């Protein structure tokens, strides 16, 4: 969520610390700050934080008011709530009927005689600073209040509401054209705001085009409501319509805020668009009951360790301006209604830990005896891998997802919907790949192995497959151990140390091989040749030259080397390689002791 520094400041009595300090505080005590950008200059200067609100705090912190309250607590500053004139006492004549418990609260405010137009410059700027486009003085007020205090608000054109408002389950295959033109087909699991003719909005998700506010609109009904979190989430996911509103409702935004939000948006609209409030109605059946949680210092210490004292806990509660009573080491905390996420002592431990900062917690070693329990399967796997490597097999890891198998996944990638029932197919492909690359790898034969889980209709098993020159043998882990006479208990604990040399990415371009056979007559001459070959291949080749053939005839020995040429940035041409290779031939020919075959 994009958050403006100046906007936060409106909620804090004292002057906020510098933006960088605020960002740091948020990162180490609350949420991840993905970016901090400066906007404008001089008087117009502002800073925009992009804050990743954690899921458990999305109910109270997806707003400037919420972040400011958290920040005030963390910095022990004074949070000040904004004040608005209360909603006038006017009875709404428009019929309103709530036919579903998924609607937790519904406030409707009707204003007549408005003039839709541009928003004042400060409002346009403020919205734009956090990436929200200005639309008109009505929609902007609704969006502003949502970003300001978290309450999503929808505004209907009163002239398009036929008869009255009904909050009800959608009919099977009922359709609605949303603002923006997209059409959605609904089911009875979706909640809609409808008039006597049809759906006007998908509750908590998005409004319809039918009753959208236009430049001609003169009478509006403002909806400040609250809907069941799970229901909103399901509808918005199913219809793939995730909106600013749905994000807030699905995270259990408190219905207690609705009245304040209604007063705020009404005041803004009256100020910017004129008009008179002609009716207000608040349907709020099940109010949120106040909750008190009792916890003791020891409840917190057993989670956060002994550096936390009763004094620390009291300090944190005071800094957040929480209402609580303390009897010796026991606290009774009145949980603020907007903190539905606090349900037990463990959550209070999180409040304390977050506030004090985890950097203040000292590290400690585990407080009990070290006794390692052997894991049979793990030991067998390790023993098998070690045996394979000792037999010159090289380990590969191939995909679990394949195009054939007994078990398949729902919504998997095309051609990868099945879970492998054996390792052989993957290993075969690996063999083909590596066989082609054998010269590059300096291998005369390719020997591979893989240890991995395979899936059958009713069970999964760990299998071992080895591939020797293209021939594959695959067995269940235990059978493999038996067949190869691997003594698991006698295997020296093979614990290779991780190398420190960095990975080198290979070239994605083809390679070219060149062979060279030379007659040598003495060991001295041979070592001279070997040096030449090594120096040349280190300088010009993709891997060390390999000796691939050798025979002796009379007093001379023929040695044959293979050279691999490959560039990291392009495909080499035969001419280029021929030219490079000729340089080697020339050097060798210049040495009279050698005869190139």
């Amino acid at each position: 969520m994009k958050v403006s520094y100046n906007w936060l400041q409106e909620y804090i009595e004292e002057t906020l610390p510098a933006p960088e300090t605020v960002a740091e505080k948020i990162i180490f005590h609350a949420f991840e700050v993905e970016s901090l950008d400066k906007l404008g200059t001089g008087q117009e200067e502002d800073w925009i934080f992009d804050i990743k609100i954690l899921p458990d705090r999305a109910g109270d912190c997806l707003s400037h008011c919420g972040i400011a309250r958290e920040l005030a607590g963390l910095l022990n500053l004074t949070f000040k709530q904004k004040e608005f004139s209360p909603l006038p006492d006017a009875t709404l004549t428009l019929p309103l009927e709530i036919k579903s418990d998924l609607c937790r609260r519904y406030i409707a405010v009707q204003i007549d005689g408005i003039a839709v137009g541009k928003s004042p410059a400060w409002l346009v700027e403020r919205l734009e600073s956090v990436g929200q486009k200005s639309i008109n003085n009505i929609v902007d007020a609704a969006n502003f209040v949502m970003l300001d205090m978290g309450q999503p608000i929808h505004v209907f054109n009163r002239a398009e509401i036929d008869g009255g408002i009904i909050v009800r389950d959608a009919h099977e295959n009922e359709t609605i054209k949303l603002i923006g033109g997209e059409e959605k087909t609904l089911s009875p699991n979706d909640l809609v705001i409808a008039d006597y003719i049809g759906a006007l909005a998908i509750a908590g998700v998005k409004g319809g085009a039918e009753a959208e506010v236009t430049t001609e609109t003169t009478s509006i009904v403002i909806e400040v409501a609250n809907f069941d979190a799970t229901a909103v989430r399901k509808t918005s996911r199913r219809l793939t319509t995730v909106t600013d509103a749905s994000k807030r409702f699905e995270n259990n935004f408190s219905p207690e805020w609705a009245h304040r939000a209604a007063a705020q948006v009404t005041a803004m609209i009256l100020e910017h668009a004129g008009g008179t409030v002609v009716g207000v109605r608040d349907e709020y059946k099940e109010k949120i009951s106040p909750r008190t949680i009792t916890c003791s210092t020891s409840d917190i210490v057993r989670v956060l360790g002994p550096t936390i004292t009763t004094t620390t806990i009291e300090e944190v509660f005071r800094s957040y301006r929480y209402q609580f009573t303390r009897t010796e080491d026991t606290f009774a905390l009145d949980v603020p209604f907007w903190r539905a996420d606090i349900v037990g002592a463990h959550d209070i431990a999180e409040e304390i830990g977050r506030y004090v900062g985890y950097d203040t917690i000292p590290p400690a070693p585990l407080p009990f005896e070290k006794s390692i329990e052997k894991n049979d399967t793990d030991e067998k796997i390790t023993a098998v891998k070690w045996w394979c490597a000792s037999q010159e097999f090289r380990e590969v890891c191939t995909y679990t997802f394949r195009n054939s198998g007994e078990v398949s996944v729902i919504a998997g990638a095309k051609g990868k919907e099945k879970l492998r029932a054996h390792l052989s197919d993957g290993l075969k492909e690996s063999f083909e790949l590596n066989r082609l690359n054998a010269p590059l790898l300096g291998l005369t034969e390719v020997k591979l192995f893989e240890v991995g889980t395979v899936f059958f209709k009713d069970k999964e098993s760990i299998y071992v497959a080895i591939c020797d020159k293209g021939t594959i043998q695959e067995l269940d882990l235990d059978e493999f151990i038996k067949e190869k006479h691997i003594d698991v208990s006698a295997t020296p604990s093979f614990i290779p140390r991780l190398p420190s040399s960095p990975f080198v990415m290979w070239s994605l371009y083809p390679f070219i091989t060149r062979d060279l056979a030379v007659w040598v007559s003495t060991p001295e001459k041979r070592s001279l040749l070997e040096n030449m070959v090594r120096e040349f291949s280190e300088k010009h080749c993709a891997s060390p030259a390999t000796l691939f053939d050798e025979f002796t005839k009379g007093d001379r020995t023929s040695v044959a080397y293979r050279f691999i040429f490959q560039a990291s940035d392009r495909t080499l041409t035969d001419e280029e390689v021929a030219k490079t290779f000729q340089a080697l031939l020339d050097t060798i020919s210049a040495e009279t002791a050698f005869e190139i075959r």
Partner: protein
Amino acid sequence: MTEYHKGTLHPLTLVTEEIKRIFAQQGFSVALGPELEDEWHNFDALNVPKDHPARDMQDTFLITDRPGFVLRTHTSNVQIRYMETHQPPFAIIVPGKVFRNEATDAGHEMQFYQVEGLVVGPSITIEHLKGTLLSFFKEFFGDETEIRLRPSFFPFVEPGLEVDAKFNGKWFELCGAGMVHPNVFKNVGYDPQNVTGFAFGMGLDRLANVKLGIPDVRLAYQGDLRFNQW
């Protein structure tokens, strides 16, 4: 230059062995478990509610014609299975393959490896979590390594933490962690009044890639021996 005269192990095996070695020094045993798992062990027991977004098929591989089963999305299923059959105190690590139904790129793969840890006992605090992970990262990346803990959220822990490690002068987000949520203990039949514990989880591929400078997570699963550089 690589020596080609003997067999080689896959780099993820090397990294797993290194991690097992380091945690064994601190008294951690290894636990393993199934890759195809029921939703109880993969989600419910871990305090992940039924309607949690992570359970959607956009993120999790559900199994055709086997309702209630998934490819595990983390190795935490083994933590549950271990607790169901063992009594505290204990310290375990769980290395293994996990699956996520997401678009693949250099940083994301449908299959990858994780190592998770779980310590439960009568007096385990966040201090032990910090001490354990600090020792691990120092041993894994080098003695000059620092770590920092930031608030985070996972349904199976409270408080939840993100652990960053500083390697070669740069901070890397490498590990999710936290104090085991009391609901998780209740779900395996432990009394949360008697035990506390911490858990952590790291991407093995990510650890390997940071440590060894591997640019793309997908390279590990091509069956390409050019990947076995050590």
